[in-house]
């Protein structure tokens, strides 16, 4: 199982994502200007401030050379995980529904939040139980998940909402407390919390590993098998 972590100018969680993925498999960095995914089994678009987040968070990064390969990889069913800025990039690229808006508080939030697993199945949360809680940190200014009401109804009915903030833990005003959504075919997943910062009890929680472990199990069972 080989993870590829995209590095844009302005990425800052790429090394943490690399370290986290290395705990469950092999992991390499993918340079934004290359058209080469190096044969990886899953792509992670990490957090940070890609291309300075100029214009809108993620708006310019989606046109990076490597993103055309990532989009093709996703279309073919490859696993793509977007964390924080990576989530924003995937929404801007149209690989995930919705958009991320500035936090209702207009402030940068940086804290541990409790998440509820809405769906304990599929490539990203297959190793979790529905209703289970995960403790994972958030750190962002633009994390308010938005989609029109009819789209939110559709996402919920289709089981595309994988993670929610537990009541009282919504740090940004996300509609319906949504913390993470996946694409309709379920192979692309984006979330604002940072599972790569929660992979060792030393940092307060190792719950984030569950996401990476779920991805590895999925790839080993469905792709490499």
């Amino acid at each position, binding site marked *: 199982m080989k993870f590829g972590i995209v590095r844009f100018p302005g990425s800052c969680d790429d090394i943490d994502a690399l370290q986290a993925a290395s705990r469950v498999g092999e992991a390499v960095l993918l340079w934004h200007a290359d058209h080469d995914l190096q044969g990886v089994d899953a792509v992670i678009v990490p957090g940070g401030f890609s291309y300075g987040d100029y*214009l*809108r968070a993620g*708006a*310019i990064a989606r*046109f990076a050379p490597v993103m055309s390969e990532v989009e093709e990889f996703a279309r073919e069913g490859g696993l793509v995980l977007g964390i924080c800025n990576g989530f924003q990039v995937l929404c*801007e690229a149209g690989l995930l529904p*919705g*958009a991320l*808006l*500035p*936090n*209702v*508080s*207009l402030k940068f939030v940086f804290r541990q939040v409790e998440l509820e697993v809405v769906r304990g199945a599929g490539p990203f949360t297959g190793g979790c139980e529905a209703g289970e809680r995960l403790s994972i940190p958030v750190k962002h200014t633009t994390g*308010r998940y*938005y*989609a*029109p009401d009819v789209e939110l109804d559709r996402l919920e009915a289709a089981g595309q909402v994988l993670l929610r903030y537990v009541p009282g833990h919504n740090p940004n*005003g996300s509609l319906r407390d949504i913390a993470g959504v996946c694409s309709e075919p379920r192979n692309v997943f984006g979330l604002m919390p940072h599972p790569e910062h929660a992979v060792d009890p030393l940092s307060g929680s190792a719950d984030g590993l569950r996401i990476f472990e779920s991805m590895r199990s999925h790839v080993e069972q469905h792709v490499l098998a």
Partner: protein
Amino acid sequence: MRARVLVRPKAGILDPQGQAVERALPALGFDGVSNVHVGRLIELDVDDPERLPEMCERLLTNPLIEDYTIEQ
């Protein structure tokens, strides 16, 4: 040709920036202000203004959350 693109948050989407400005004005004695929204102005020189709508749809705005008007 010089063009201006005015970008606004879509109606109905919570606009905390607009709300913050709306609350700040009365504090300075400017009463009677409501419906404040904060958007963005993009000015650009373009050879072919007919391509402006496509620029807006693909990069300058996110049509899911923003409306725009083009002034030439």
